[in-house]
């Protein structure tokens, strides 16, 4: 039990404080604002813990890559390091860090992203991973975020690794012209160097172009691209062709990718990415023109 200051001076000051603060109006929405701020604080501290785990994994991977191989082999493979997924709810998808095989060029260092922006992008990526995991067929396996590009995710299916792309970026007129299939009737397939494109109706007002791709090793990929608001959207499932991983053909067809794109939860997330971009507009190099 705490002692109460009963000296006359104390009573008088307490009385004055009470009268002055009685005049204060009730702060509006204090609890709701505190909850919002608290959620941000909680997310930030979780990301800090997750980030530390990712950094540790990246450092370990770098260390491993620098060690001489026992067999005396040449160029080292790029091992994948998967940070342990935090077990606390809500679920957090782990980030898979691809270890660099060469020292980074200092002139190419990534620009410094403000903390709040980094958190926003991380939150968007976590929710993107969640829709990929929840709404794509289970054949894609466990989903994780890939560290090297904001729109890339890794699917670790039983057969091998898959690159899942969930991209919504501001439309750029500087991008490559996509004339193929752009003017064909909906549903008509066009063969292009072993791949097939087709114009499809995604929603009442949105048409897209699907691609059933075939790479030089005979592995297939499935993708759909379309315009949404002021953005270019690209959703794809294909082989994750990276040293050290086992790339496999997409277990999904283009129709399954289209069905995924049509899900309201996916569309809502894409619309958010359109209104609040997490990627920069594509820069186009003519060297890649077909």
């Amino acid at each position, binding site marked *: 039990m705490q002692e109460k200051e009963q000296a006359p001076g104390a009573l008088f*000051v307490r009385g004055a404080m009470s009268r002055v603060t009685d005049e204060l109006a009730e702060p509006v929405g204090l609890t709701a604002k505190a*909850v919002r701020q608290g959620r941000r604080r909680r997310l930030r501290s979780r990301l800090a813990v997750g980030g530390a785990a990712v950094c540790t994994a990246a450092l370990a991977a770098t260390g491993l890559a620098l060690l001489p191989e026992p067999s005396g082999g040449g160029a080292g493979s790029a091992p994948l390091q998967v940070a342990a997924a935090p077990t606390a709810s809500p679920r957090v998808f782990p980030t898979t860090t691809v270890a660099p095989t060469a020292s980074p060029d200092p002139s190419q260092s990534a620009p410094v992203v403000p903390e709040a922006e980094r958190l926003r992008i991380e939150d968007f990526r976590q929710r993107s991973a969640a829709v990929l995991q929840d709404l794509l067929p289970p054949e894609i396996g466990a989903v994780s975020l890939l560290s090297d590009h904001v729109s890339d995710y890794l699917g670790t299916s039983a057969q091998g690794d898959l690159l899942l792309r969930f991209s919504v970026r501001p439309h750029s007129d500087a991008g490559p012209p996509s004339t193929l299939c752009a003017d064909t009737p909906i549903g008509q397939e066009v063969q292009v160097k072993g791949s097939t494109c087709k114009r499809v109706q995604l929603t009442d007002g949105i048409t897209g172009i699907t691609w059933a791709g075939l790479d030089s090793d005979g592995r297939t990929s499935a993708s759909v691209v379309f315009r949404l608001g002021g953005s270019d959207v690209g959703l794809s499932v294909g082989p994750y062709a990276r040293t050290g991983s086992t790339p496999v053909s997409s277990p999904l067809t283009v129709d399954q990718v289209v069905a995924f794109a049509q899900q309201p939860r996916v569309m809502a997330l894409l619309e958010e990415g359109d209104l609040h971009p997490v990627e920069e507009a594509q820069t186009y190099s003519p060297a890649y023109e077909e």
Partner: protein
Amino acid sequence: MAGGAGERMRGQGELSFEEYAAVHGRRLYRTAYLLCGDTHRAEDLAQTTLAKLFAHWRRASRMEHLDAYTRTVLTRTFLGEQRRRAVARRLGLLASRPESSPGEDTDLRVTLMNALAELPVRARAMVVLRYWEDLSVETVADLLDCSTGTVKSQCSRALARLREQLGESYPYAAA
């Protein structure tokens, strides 16, 4: 907070953050206002305190002395913010602006807040915690990481000053 309503509420079952904040938010805001003397900053302080509580609510809600913990968070948030403001002011990054008050100024409020503003930051915190929150000398000393002697002497000096200033302009209060 002084009444320990948090402790009472928890006896009636699991206490939700919203319930706790609804009951204690206003008191927290009033304490924050006495600490900083500005309604906007007081709201920010109360909000940040509650946000910190929310971020660790599962653990915090099981604390035996949740109200005391909340007071500690508020006080430390206030002192931390004061330190940052002092640095920013020294670097010329913080423009001084008039403190915002709740509507029409009364003589008592002007005199009390001016008198509190003249106290050093820690002395002001001591006065608010000791006389407004009714905390013991030992608790205040513990909270502000100083000796009980410091709390006693600072409070005694501050109290004399407050009485003198308030008494001059507000004779009713001195009665």
